[in-house]
């Protein structure tokens, strides 16, 4: 009886150990993946994931292709230069109008203060209504343009009530310095850089909370393999996001090093960011709303609102974090 009990116990323990050993040693296939990462602190989960080796235990071997802005990241994905990209909901909305074959796998960060309105101090712009007739620089087809249109809308205005000038994100400040525009709408870190450089010459308007920007993981319309890769990416991002929540100081250092930014900037921008994985109805509604808004305000050349749900692929998220997915079927 004693021997039988001991043998049973030993067999059970051995089976568990073998199982655990097998699980840990079982190597998944490694897929090389190129991600077009927007060079902004919004992409922190990606930088942290790579720095802490969060992708190591997954099926992807990640390589970053850093770009300025989600629009360029999107272009890289569509050109086939990258497998995945990071884009804001605004970019997704504008691109969905163009009927591009892409999908959003997950949203990983949100900020209600990433895009800012900066006006010339001498222009005496106190509120959005004062922008009427002013020359304003934006980056076309991005959160920058959408943000401005929203600000104007809150005063009953549209983009037709101002003179819009289109710039690449990194060239907005130059347009301002060259006096081509009275105000401009940059995202970070260009907002911070402008304030640092221009100091008293500019006025930064309090717009926190007026628009929530979310950054998303996108890819071309996904087949099963791409969904598998997206699943692995999301697994890595999930680890990174937990790390950010547990070790914010170390995470900030990683971003400072990766993006060559100042600690001052990160401290300034960090409280606005909420890093969390999700894929929910609010994203669908936001994209849809932005698309409709773009049509009605002639921000886009297209005039048909697509079915936004075609641009959402929840398969990867459902495998990793099913409770973070909330899209009615």
């Amino acid at each position, binding site marked *: 009886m004693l021997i039988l009990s001991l043998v049973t116990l030993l067999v059970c323990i051995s089976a568990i150990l073998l199982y655990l050993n097998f699980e840990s040693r079982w190597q998944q296939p490694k897929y090389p993946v190129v991600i077009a990462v927007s060079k902004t602190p919004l992409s922190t989960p990606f930088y942290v994931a790579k720095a802490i080796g969060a992708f190591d235990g997954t099926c992807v071997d990640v390589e970053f292709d850093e770009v300025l802005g989600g629009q360029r990241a999107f272009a890289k994905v569509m050109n086939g230069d990258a497998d995945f990209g990071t884009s804001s909901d605004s970019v997704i909305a504008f691109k969905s109008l163009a009927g591009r074959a892409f999908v959003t796998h997950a949203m990983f960060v949100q900020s209600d203060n990433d895009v800012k309105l900066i006006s010339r101090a001498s222009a005496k712009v106190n509120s959005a209504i004062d922008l009427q007739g002013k020359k304003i620089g934006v980056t076309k087809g991005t959160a920058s343009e959408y943000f401005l249109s929203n600000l104007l809308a809150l005063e009953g205005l549209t983009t037709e009530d101002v003179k819009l000038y289109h710039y690449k994100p990194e060239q907005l400040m130059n347009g301002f310095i060259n006096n081509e525009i009275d105000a401009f709408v940059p995202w970070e870190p260009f907002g911070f850089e402008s304030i640092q450089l221009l100091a008293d010459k500019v006025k930064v308007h309090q717009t926190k909370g*007026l628009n929530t920007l979310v950054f998303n993981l996108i890819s071309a319309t996904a087949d099963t393999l791409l969904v598998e890769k997206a699943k692995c990416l999301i697994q890595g991002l999930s680890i990174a996001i937990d790390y950010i929540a547990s070790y914010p100081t170390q995470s900030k250092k990683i971003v400072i090093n990766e993006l060559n930014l100042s600690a001052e900037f990160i401290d300034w921008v960090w409280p606005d960011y909420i890093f969390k994985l999700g894929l929910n109805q609010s994203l669908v509604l936001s994209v849809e709303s932005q698309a409709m808004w773009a049509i009605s*305000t002639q921000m886009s050349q297209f005039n048909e609102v697509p079915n936004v749900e075609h641009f959402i692929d929840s398969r990867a998220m459902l495998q990793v974090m099913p409770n973070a997915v909330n899209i009615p079927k």
Partner: protein
Amino acid sequence: MNISLLQRILFFTLSCCFLFGLLFASVIWSSQAIELALSRDNYAEQLTNQTNSLKQLVANDNIYDSDYSLSDWQNLQVKLTRLLKSSPKLTAQQEIIQISIQSQNESLKSLFTLINQNKLKNASETIKNHLKARLMIQLEAIRSDSLQLSAIAQQDIYNTIKNQAFMFIVVSVVSILALFFGAFSLTYIVRKSLNEIKCAFEKNHSGHFQKIKLSHHSQEFDSIADAFNTMNKKLSESTISLTAMEKIVEERTHVLEQLSNTDPLTKVANRRALFERADMEFSRAIRSHSKLTLLLIDCDFFKKVNDQYGHLFGDELLIHICNICRQEIRDIDFLARYGGEEFILILPNCDITGGIETANRIQHSLANNCLKVDSKEICVTLSIGISMLSERHKSLDQLINDADKAMYLAKENGRNRIEVIPAPNLH
């Protein structure tokens, strides 16, 4: 380590108590964890309901109307904000979602305030619809986060119950195994030790004083074994076996017999042994009609030698005469001291001629081996009377008497002689 059985029982009892205590603690912990998760779920549900109410309000009411009353919105908004401030303790993951909801709520408030502040009287329907949609999106974002909060809480409840069930099964299995093991090992030790002690008692009974060697040590059985071993040691020291005793008695009897049958000086048989043997030989000769001859040997002038050389020499002389006689007789012959300087030699299966030959050999041998005293040789002679069993001998005494007569005859005839009492018509 020597552990007592009581300690073993105590140890197993405590182990089982500990395991069940662990189980009990885990049940309490789980119930608290489930209670907390339920409160989180309840909180998330309230958030969802509150957000749905706000959504219904935005969807149904015309917020741009100049007569639009803010009170309904504000009531719901205040409730939502208050609810957000009264959140239960959340997990790290839920805390992030909570922050997100708070941020979305702030955005919602800012947006609504601005919309309401400007009233947008002159704005187009497109703008109004868009901003209303924005409000709905903010609310949807809160609702989605609340649902995620609820889903996490439900997942926590599921995980807690699953872990508790697993814990319950593991602890129960371990407890049962521990109980089995404990009971079995205790029974085994007690049974084995009792058997070993029983074996030792049985061996003791048969006279084999052996120590108890216990295969399993326990203070209780060790103390019994120690007491038994001490007792055994004392017993083995003070007790000898029956066989050993018989052997000793036999040896002692043999020694005593030898002492009672032996002449202490000459170490030949004494008078008692002589008559015992002579009776036996006499009876046998009569019974088997065999021959029996008796020699009575007397040392000539022994008294004179004694007086001249002392009693010690006399004693040595007697020993010397016995040694000479022993050399010259057969194994079946029997030499005994008859008294003083007289010896009797019994010669079974020997006739008168054989007796004379033996007597002659003894006399010659003695003559050739004189005793030395202070480098001076002292020679003595023997007068030997011989008688042989005949019909007229009705008893041993008569035979001895004849040998005695023959010996006196030899003395009378000049000593150092052999005289025979004839035994005519024998058989």
